[in-house]
């Protein structure tokens, strides 16, 4: 596919369970970003990857949140011991390189914690 893809599109989980969200960026894009969007609101920056390293993790809300990127491509955002306040849409974006300002977004994963 030509765009950023994310899976699953929807995830319903019980409080206390761990979840993994996946992002496949556009091929050749070296920069990858994770954002969180609460219902109908703006986006909140979580973490940024350049290649496989994360120079900026400043947006991760707590140590229950972690992310990794392998092979300079796929990224996984993991939330441990989920809480109800983690319910949101998690969006991934990629850009050609860190100096390029246009970010291309995936459709997001809607996470619901019961």
């Amino acid at each position, binding site marked *: 596919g030509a765009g950023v893809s994310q899976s699953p599109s929807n995830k319903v989980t019980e409080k206390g369970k761990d979840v993994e969200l996946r992002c496949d960026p556009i091929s050749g894009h070296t920069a990858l970003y994770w954002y969180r969007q609460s219902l109908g609101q703006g986006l909140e920056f979580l973490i*940024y990857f350049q290649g496989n390293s994360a120079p900026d993790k400043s947006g991760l809300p707590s140590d229950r949140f972690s992310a990794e990127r392998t092979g300079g491509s796929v990224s996984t955002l993991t939330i441990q011991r989920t809480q109800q306040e983690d319910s949101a849409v998690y*969006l991934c974006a990629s850009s050609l390189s860190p100096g390029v300002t246009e970010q291309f977004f995936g459709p997001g994963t809607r996470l619901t914690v019961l």
Partner: protein
Amino acid sequence: TQLLEQSPQFLSIQEGENLTVYCNSSSVFSSLQWYRQEPGEGPVLLVTVVTGGEVKKLKRLTFQFGDARKDSSLHITAAQTGDTGLYLCAGFQGAQKLVFGQGTRLTINP
């Protein structure tokens, strides 16, 4: 506290009317961006404004960056039902961290 404040948060108008959405901050940004987001999709970049006082036009949409690079506006002329969506402004903090406003939900009624 929101770094970028958008107003109004909700706007519902009739097709054919004009509208303006505002994005304000107390901080200076090197550039500001406007995105449009439809339900179930990620935001799509509409424009990037870089120079203070810059005006960019995209068909019926006019984007302006304030002289002091702290604010921006989006003006839509003769709104159409296809303009309905969530409009987001965003600015870069540092080289890579994009901060977003809370969005303006626009509804154009036929």
